[in-house]
């Protein structure tokens, strides 16, 4: 990767064996209530959580248990009704929408179940997309995007459009897009949900590699026990509480 290498060095991968691991995300008394018409739905209720830096966590639980809501809160996409959220040294609850957007661009890489690539852009352009928000020159952006695609094994598909790629390849482009701005945390919402077993395993191998070699903290929501097995920590949510 041509991006700042601080979080990508494979040499630092052994830190997890150290006894003192700092938390990259710290949630205290987090409560999230949704208003649906006249009904108030409490999705998370006084949740406390610490996510160790460099961990690979799987969040499991039944539908409606609050997994995605928790992921969205940690990723700065949503705000808690009550409680505090501190991620990568920033108190998200105090940030404005603009500050959150800038913080997300720097800190979080997103992987979605449906890949969500821009159909009008090539693989290379899709990966370059988050870098358009930086002041990097075009040549440097392109170089970093190529590097990210090489990391996910798609250097031979740079100029293919999403419709010309398989589901697994599309998800790998999405991972390269998540990786290109060298974020500290990668959040993945059911990243293997739309894939066959073989492609899912490839994606999970890749996530594992990002965690181990590049020291990315990975938070993955999944229903799939097979996928969760790859994580170093598995957390279960049920009715808004960790069990």
């Amino acid at each position: 990767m041509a991006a700042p290498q601080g979080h990508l060095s494979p040499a630092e991968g052994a830190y997890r064996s150290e006894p003192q691991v700092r938390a990259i995300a710290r949630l205290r008394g987090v409560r999230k209530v949704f208003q649906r018409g006249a009904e108030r739905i409490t999705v998370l209720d006084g949740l406390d959580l610490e996510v160790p830096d460099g961990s690979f966590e799987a969040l499991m639980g039944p539908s409606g248990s609050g997994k995605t809501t928790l992921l969205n809160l940690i990723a700065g996409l949503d705000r808690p009704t009550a409680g505090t959220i501190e991620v990568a040294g920033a108190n998200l609850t105090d940030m404005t929408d603009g500050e959150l957007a800038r913080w997300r661009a720097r800190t979080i890489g997103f992987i979605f179940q449906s890949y969500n690539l821009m159909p009008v852009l090539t693989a290379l352009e899709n990966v370059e997309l988050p870098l358009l928000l930086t002041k990097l020159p075009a040549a440097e952006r392109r170089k970093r995007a190529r590097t990210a695609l090489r990391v996910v094994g798609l250097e031979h598909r740079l100029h293919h459009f999403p419709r010309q790629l398989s589901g697994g390849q599309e998800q790998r482009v999405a991972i390269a897009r998540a990786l290109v701005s060298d974020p500290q945390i990668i959040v993945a919402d059911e990243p293997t949900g739309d894939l066959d077993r073989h492609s899912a395993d490839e994606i999970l191998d890749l996530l594992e590699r990002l965690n181990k070699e590049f020291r990315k903290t990975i938070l993955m929501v999944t229903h799939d026990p097979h996928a969760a097995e790859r994580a170093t920590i598995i957390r279960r949510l049920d009715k808004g509480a960790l069990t």
Partner: protein
Amino acid sequence: MNLPLLAVRNVMRNRFRTTLTICGVAVAVLCFVLLRTVVYSWTVAVDQAASDRIGTRHKITFIMPLPRRYIDEIRSVPGVTAATWMNWFGGKDPKNERDFFATIAVDSRSFLTVYDEIVVPPEDLERWYQDRKGALVGDALAKKKGWKVGDRITLVGTIFPGEWEFHISGIYTATRKSVDRSTLWFHWDYLNESLPERLRDTLGWVVSRVSDPARTAEISKAIDARFEDRDVQTLSMSERALNLSFMGMLSAVLTAVDIVSVVILVIMMLILGNTIAMGVRERTAEYGVLRAIGFWPRHLAAFVLGEGMITGLLGGALGLLLSYPIVEQGLGRWVEENMGALFPYFRVPWPTAALALTLALVLGVVASLIPAWRAARLDVITALRRMD
């Protein structure tokens, strides 16, 4: 890759829909250009009117004649350097009586002194002066009728009944757009001498040239003052005012054309707005992803506004490209040949072309304002939920 390129790519995402939208905008722009050209062409006689010419007619109405002796008195008014007169003849081609063109009897000795924007080759002019039945025809009329110098033609008089023979002495062009190039001019003497005694020596109207264009109002008053205590009183005004008074009768039509041209643009804007709103709705999830990875609401608004601008611009450009061959070459030629008296110069004026393109672009942006506002206000979580 850059942000404007993303907007361009989004425009071309659904090519069929985009093509239809661009065609819709193009047709609207074409209609706008056509209607504005109608208005322009109608008013060109006013805009291009000579500033140093005064028209004098019967005070009551155009159709009542003036006594011939008035011409000499008008010529003697201080400030008047030349004067000519003419009568509306109202001739028709018996082979095609529905084919309208102006036929006017003029005083051949003074006519081209007052109307020096009319260009006649010297040999044609000489031929005309020599031939009592000679006539000058505009190049547009000659082309339409297939007339050439030397042809003998017969017209039927509607005001002065009977069959009238004319010889085509020459073909005129003009250096000013306001000149109708589909008129037939002939000798007033030929008309006058052919009329019964009681109808002779009357003038339809008089046109004078003045030494100082700034004094047209003053000289007009002086002319009318000459005839104030006569049986036949006059009304004089600058050529521009004369044309305007004629235009005044058509002002309601021109206003209606103006309104229709605006309505067409509003319809275009609504069609464009609907298409862009549809595109934004379809891309809600993508906008959610863009917001998630750090794009700001203003980025999304800019994408949508950019799409509107590009679509408007492409439609406007296509509309203009179509309007030149259709309005100027096809329809314009036909109008000039067949309706030259009303539309002497039916061409797309460049300010109209520039206005149409600018309006297409601006309306493209205006049409995308609400979709852009909606895209900018998208809640990220709600937008991301639209993925599944």
